[in-house]
């Protein structure tokens, strides 16, 4: 079933990024195809100073454009337990979910604690396109064209104090609208968290749209987190509260099964989930599995965050 979603951004993302740039990307990709992947990586890396070596993934992710997962899959195959535990539950169950008005409470160790509206952070003219790999802890993956803004922009705006070391994100807890909350599958509300330096990383992204459209409810509207080098469950959806703290937040899946889901949850092919291997993944739409990349292919940009940290213990 095709659900038409009326864009809520005044300017559709296709206009934000001038068509010429898109065309350019396409021809760029074509050239890259001819000249070889190595050169593509070099070119892509050239766009972003911090993106040399490794998988050669730029922050914008233009080189992933040819691998996009169909929109139908991105918007109908969702883990969003507040709307049901089946992956096809969220889409129908979130159909009438109200995302307007929406406020985000910012609290804790922060200079400007306040209740903000989404619009305070989302200025349509500043929305960025990012094509990211998305790797679920369940060993499936996608490539998704998100729209949003860097988490760092948000953090700078609310100014955490010097003692803040972590940031905690809370998902809406409204059983009237979210039928999944009626069962204690997880400890509600859904809480996720990051180390502050992770949240400040340029790849850390607040998402408000996908495929050039306003984020569908089942994908975590109106505001969700995307951390491309971590397993998907780190990306809290429909965020209503952001709290800055000096203690590692207790996160939903970690509470539910500490031996299976850690706080860090960095994509790591060398550390298996107790019930399955994380060495390979199945890209949605592909029949054969592919090798999982360390940090989901973003190692050149994020590995330094974890130097000296035992990733086998801190999974």
């Amino acid at each position: 079933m095709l659900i038409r979603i009326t864009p809520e951004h005044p300017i559709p993302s296709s206009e934000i990024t001038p068509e010429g740039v898109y065309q350019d990307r396409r021809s760029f990709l074509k050239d890259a195809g001819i000249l070889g992947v190595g050169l593509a990586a070099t070119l892509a890396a050239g766009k972003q100073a911090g993106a040399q070596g490794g998988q050669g993934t730029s922050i914008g992710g233009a080189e992933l454009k040819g691998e996009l997962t169909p929109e139908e899959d991105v918007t109908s195959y969702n883990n969003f337990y507040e709307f049901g535990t089946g992956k096809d539950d969220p889409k129908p169950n979130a159909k009438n979910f109200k995302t307007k008005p929406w406020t985000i409470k910012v609290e804790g160790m922060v200079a400007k604690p306040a209740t903000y509206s989404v619009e305070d952070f989302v200025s349509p003219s500043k929305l960025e396109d990012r094509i990211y790999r998305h790797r679920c802890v369940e060993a499936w993956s996608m490539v998704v064209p998100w729209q949003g803004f860097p988490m760092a922009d948000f953090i700078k705006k609310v100014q955490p104090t010097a003692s803040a070391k972590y940031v905690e994100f809370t998902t809406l807890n409204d059983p009237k609208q979210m039928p999944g909350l009626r069962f204690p599958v997880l400890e509600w509300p859904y809480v996720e968290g990051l180390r502050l330096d992770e949240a400040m990383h340029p790849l850390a992204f607040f998402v408000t749209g996908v495929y050039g459209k306003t984020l569908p409810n089942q994908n975590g509207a109106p505001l969700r987190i995307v951390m491309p080098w971590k397993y998907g469950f780190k990306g809290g959806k429909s965020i209503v509260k952001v709290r800055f703290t000096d203690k590692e937040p207790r996160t939903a899946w970690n509470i539910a099964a500490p031996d299976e889901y850690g706080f860090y949850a960095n994509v790591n092919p060398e550390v298996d989930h107790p019930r399955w291997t994380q060495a390979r993944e199945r890209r949605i739409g592909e029949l054969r599995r592919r090798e999982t990349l360390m940090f989901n292919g973003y190692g050149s940009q994020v590995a330094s965050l974890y130097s000296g940290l035992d990733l086998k213990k801190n999974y």
Partner: protein
Amino acid sequence: MEAGLQPAGVEGVGGVQGVARSRVERVRRAKAPKAPRWVHPLVIVAALVPFVWVAFAMWSDVFEGTRYLGSEPIKESEHFTGKWALRFLLGCLAVTPLIRITKIGWLITYRRTFGLIAFFYACVHLTIYFGLDIELMWSNLVEDVLDRTYITLGMTALLLMVPLALTSTKASIRWLGNRKWTAVHRLVYVSAVLGVIHFYMAVKKDVREPLVFAAILATLFAIRWWYRRPVAGNKRAGDLASGG
């Protein structure tokens, strides 16, 4: 219990002819109403509908680009066939209690039928897991079976069904003798319990569905226990004690 073994064991193989049974039993059998001949084949065809459907859906999703099985057709078909294996296993275990309650003797035919269909679905489940999910990687298989308890249990449940399927023929009963055959076929209880635990452990967090399977299995065991319980002065207790 010993005394009860004989007739129940005979019933147990789907109305095997030519095995000694009491005169009373013979008379009761002769008078017992039978289902029309076409019912059994029809049930078998119906039982294979889920398989035909999933095979078609898989083929269509892969080659025609349809989305019958959603975004992950391999996982979906794996779970689908696994659950059908368990359903038929529970169906198989439901036959004897159902006969106890309804007194419809000819239902016994379906114990073997459902058992074999459960085995069939379990084999398809294993084939999808090994062939498509882990892509024939022996190292992965060995790792899964040795290190991952739910797979260890699932594999054990399936392997336990092999001797049962192999000895599901009339000839096997004659070859083993009733008592031995019945004893061997008690493995089905172990297989069912392991199969349900396998399902329970395999799901990520929402265990409501496996718990339904577990509840049904527990109910079937409870009914068996109820009919087997020693009741003073009740001749039927011994008579109905065994089998199934």
